[in-house]
């Protein structure tokens, strides 16, 4: 093998092991930046050793041993870290002679726990949502700062700054990189799931022709969701979120036309939906239900996505079931947008009057005052109820609020169809 090929192979091995390595090191030294440096040092050692010795049997354990040795050397050398040394140095000294075999066994035991601890720390509520997302992609996803910046349409310096601040906040808060077990576990889990779904949605919002790193965020989030499902096999909402993402992702290639324009759910060619992802999503949903979590916010959204996946044609959609799922969702996840979707579902299931009745209640919600889909939905209900003049006013209002040229044209067309 040529030297460059060997290097590439080593770097790939490192990439695969990196998150595990970081989680073990972060828990040991309680400092993300230092853990990253130690991991990087271990890579440097591997790059010089492995071309001579070949890639070891368990590269993860090997890298961990190398990184731990660097940590000990570092603590010995650096008087500035005297405090930390006193705190953790002794533990490290005890591990000085640990063999790869010992570490291998320990890693298999703690494998899940340490990685989960790192995920929970990166998604800690002391950090802003944006910082959590950036740090999770950096530490668990292994994305570079530049990739994260491109994915979120931000400038690289801003992302770098965000990550540095997040690491400082974690250090300042004295987080121990552990999995929460007590009363705050559910709240902390919600924070993790929120970040994963935020990453997914950012990818889902990407349009054709954009930097591929953006739609790539969907795959990144699905991967995170699958990892979480492996690490927390008893948490129904983890499976609810996984179901939601897998089923939504099944439509990714069906939702844009050849010219890049967006195709709505009812207009999509359902033969292009990815049946494998749908099956994976439905299986995850079953798992969420079996764990008693059918009524969790993510499981309900997953169930909504599943309703569409089950319908071979748009006309076959079970709107009554969708309406009842929205009834349940607004209880566990109250929001005016959920209420609006609920009104639409009821209008499809029970007729436009049912939709109109429900939409009256949210009409004045401040959050939706300038939200084009609200008058657009109302216009649609009125149109179907035969109240054309009123429908026209709503479509025109929706068109004036829309910032998307294609959507604006569509809404004006609907206004036109109401006659004058």
């Amino acid at each position: 093998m040529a030297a460059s090929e060997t290097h590439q192979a080593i770097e790939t091995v490192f990439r695969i092991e990196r998150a595990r390595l970081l989680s073990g090191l972060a828990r040991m030294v309680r400092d993300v930046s230092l853990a990253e440096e130690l991991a990087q040092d271990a890579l440097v050692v591997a790059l010089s050793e492995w071309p001579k010795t070949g890639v070891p049997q368990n590269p993860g354990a090997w890298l961990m041993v190398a990184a731990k040795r660097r940590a000990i050397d570092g603590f010995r050398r650096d008087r500035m870290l005297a405090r930390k040394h006193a705190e953790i140095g002794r533990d490290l000294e005890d591990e000085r002679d640990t063999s790869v075999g010992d570490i291998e066994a320990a890693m298999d035991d703690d494998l899940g726990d340490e990685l989960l601890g790192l995920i929970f720390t990166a998604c800690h509520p002391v950090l802003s949502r944006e910082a959590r997302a950036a740090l999770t992609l950096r530490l668990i996803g292994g994305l570079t700062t530049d990739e994260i910046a491109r994915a979120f349409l931000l400038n690289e310096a801003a992302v770098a700054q965000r990550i540095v601040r997040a690491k400082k906040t974690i250090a300042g808060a004295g987080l121990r990189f552990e999995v929460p077990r007590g009363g705050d576990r559910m709240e902390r889990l919600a924070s993790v799931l929120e970040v994963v779904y935020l990453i997914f949605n950012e990818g889902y919002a990407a349009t054709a022709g954009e930097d591929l790193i953006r739609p790539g965020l969907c795959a990144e989030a699905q991967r995170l969701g699958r990892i979480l499902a492996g690490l927390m096999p008893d948490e129904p909402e983890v499976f609810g979120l996984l179901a939601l993402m897998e089923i939504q992702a099944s439509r990714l290639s069906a939702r844009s036309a050849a010219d890049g324009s967006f195709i709505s759910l009812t207009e999509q060619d359902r033969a292009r939906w990815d049946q494998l992802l749908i099956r994976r999503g439905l299986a995850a949903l079953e798992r969420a239900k079996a764990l008693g979590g059918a009524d969790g916010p993510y499981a309900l959204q997953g169930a909504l996505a599943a309703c569409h996946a089950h319908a071979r044609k748009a006309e076959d959609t079970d709107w009554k079931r969708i309406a009842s799922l929205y009834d349940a969702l607004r209880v566990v996840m109250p929001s005016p947008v959920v209420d609006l979707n609920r009104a639409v579902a009821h209008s499809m299931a029970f007729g436009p009057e049912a939709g109109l009745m429900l939409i009256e209640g949210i009409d004045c919600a401040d959050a939706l005052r300038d939200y084009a889909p609200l008058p657009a939905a109302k216009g649609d209900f009125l149109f179907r109820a035969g109240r054309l003049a009123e429908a026209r006013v709503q479509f025109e209002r929706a068109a004036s609020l829309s910032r998307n040229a294609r959507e604006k044209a569509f809404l004006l067309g609907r206004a036109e169809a109401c006659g004058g």
Partner: protein
Amino acid sequence: MRVMVLVKATKDSEAGTMPSMELLTAMGKFNEQLANAGILLTGDGLKASSQGKRVAFGGPGRTVIDGPFAETRELVAGFWLWQVKDMAEAVEWVKRCPNPMLGPSEIEIRPLFEAADFASS
């Protein structure tokens, strides 16, 4: 990217020899690692080609051919579908697979077409 990982057949797999308990355990562990890494989409083992059939196409003609088929090395004995970042990652994961057969064997990695591949045409 998605890749299909193909475990190639051997004389043993074609003879219908069942894998040993050790291999099944090791494969189970490997599958768990793949799942925990978030890359495993699906996968399964295939019965010997003697259980299979081929349909040959030529113009309007359709000819059914019963297995077993020759060229053992070209036959597939099992498959996975993985979602990985790149081919290098797939290669590293395949290297970690326990020997899938008793004797020498091969695993082939083939990328799937993705939406982006059609975008330019």
